[in-house]
């Protein structure tokens, strides 16, 4: 049984002027347990919508999403979302923010939660910052809190929606190394959406390249580069070839979008 399975998922929204806008069209994907799958595609191809669907926040117009063979009906503790904008509650300290998911589960007592939280704060290298407030942290640190929060509920699946897009280029690089380290430690299945081809190749076991709107799977590319990967791998021929290939695919899509009907995301 596959861990995650998307079968012919179609997402469309009714338009105010009549007709419908198809964001995702006939999307098919199978993800194994423990895999790191990145999804990369042009703007507006519905990547973020896909994550919402897998998470259960949005229902597909047709098609189905299965997790461990069961239909996805709503959010559930076996998956957790990491947001591009961090989405931390500004009035809570780091500790309280990481605890948010656990609180909502209502499964553990306060001391139990505190234990778990400190474990994950350590995992994301934020010891010493427990009592800080989000506004006192840098972007990279805030996202680490977001990651810790997602990990704290011990999900089977991590859904990451362009989590590093709001960070500066250098922090982004550092964070992707960090994420890889954390993932090797935590061993979750990860769906990682990104704009950045570099990120997509660096982090992935497999890369899903999406077409422009309506979003479909254009190609699924396995990444056979050995792990653990250091940043210098980005200069190696295997990496460069993959990057080139994905860029070519995306270029086609971008031309197609610009040349044809101009659809705004």
């Amino acid at each position, binding site marked *: 049984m596959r861990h995650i399975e998307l079968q012919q998922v179609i997402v469309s929204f009714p338009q105010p002027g009549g007709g419908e806008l198809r964001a995702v069209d006939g999307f098919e994907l199978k993800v194994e347990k423990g895999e790191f799958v990145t999804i990369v595609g042009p703007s507006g191809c519905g990547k973020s919508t896909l994550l919402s669907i897998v998470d259960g926040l949005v229902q597909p117009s047709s098609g189905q999403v299965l997790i461990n063979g069961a239909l996805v009906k709503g959010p559930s503790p076996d998956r957790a979302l990491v*947001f591009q904008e961090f989405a*931390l*509650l500004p009035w*809570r300290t780091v500790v309280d923010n990481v605890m948010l*998911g656990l*609180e*909502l589960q209502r499964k553990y007592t306060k001391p139990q939660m505190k234990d778990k939280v400190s474990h994950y704060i350590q995992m994301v290298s934020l010891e010493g910052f427990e009592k800080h*407030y989000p506004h006192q942290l840098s972007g990279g640190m805030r996202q680490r809190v977001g990651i810790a929060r997602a990990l704290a509920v011990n999900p089977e699946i991590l859904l990451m929606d362009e989590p590093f897009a709001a960070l500066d280029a250098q922090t982004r690089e550092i964070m992707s190394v960090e994420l890889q380290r954390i993932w090797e430690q935590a061993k979750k299945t990860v769906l990682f959406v990104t704009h950045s081809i570099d990120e997509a190749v660096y982090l992935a076991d497999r890369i899903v390249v999406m077409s422009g709107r309506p979003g479909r799977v254009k190609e699924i590319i396995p990444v056979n580069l050995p792990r653990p990967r250091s940043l210098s791998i980005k200069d190696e021929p295997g990496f460069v070839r993959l990057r080139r290939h994905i860029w070519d695919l995306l270029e086609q899509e971008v031309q197609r979008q610009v040349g044809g009907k101009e659809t705004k995301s």
Partner: protein
Amino acid sequence: MKEKTWQRTWIGGTAVIAFLVLWEIAMPLGLVKVADISRPSLVVKSFFELAAAGEIFPHLVISLKEFIAGFFLSLIVGIPLGVVLGRYRFSGLLLDPLLMALYTMPRMAMMPLLVVWFGVGMGATISVVFLGAVFPIFINTSVGIREIDPIWVRAVRSFGGTEWDIFKKVFLPGAVPPMMSGIRLGVGRGILGMVVSEMYASTAGIGGQIANYGNSFRTTELITLIAIVSLLGFFMVDLMRRVEERVRRGRMEGWQ
């Protein structure tokens, strides 16, 4: 910074003292002949006399009772109302002109109505305090709710939070700073309402006493009472300001 506060106290203090001195000598020196403006020394003296005679504190207690009742009412009505109006745009838009019209109406103007509806004395005063305080409270609360970043709602939902969770963990804490400002403003308006209503509608309470002394042309006692009311207003607002600061500091500096 320290020098500025020192300067401020120094110059301000001197000005106040100069004022008091001028006031004290104005009448004896015949500077003011047209009216009785009394003198600070007499005012202080009358304060102790009145206090001893039980003319001050019992009335103050009555006034405070009315204030607390009215203010408490405005909290339990104003905060939920603000939450609903802020959360559900529909209701906000529907009720907006009505509430605005009510807001612009001077509560004093409604006194004849309120007195008949709620009775002379306590009833009318409590309703005036309520009307005064409830508006800033629910307006500020609704604004606070409206300004909640939807991403926080989404985050809580993605972790399986129910509507009640969202309310408790996002809307309530998020709206607290503006709510506190609203409450502080409400206190000021509530005190105002309390005095106004008592002056108009009753013989009890501080306002009632002010009206009495006014009617009997006892300037000194009048000024004493005005000073007391002034101090009361000042302390209440200052207290609320401190509470607001505390709440603000206890959570996050730099955010709002």
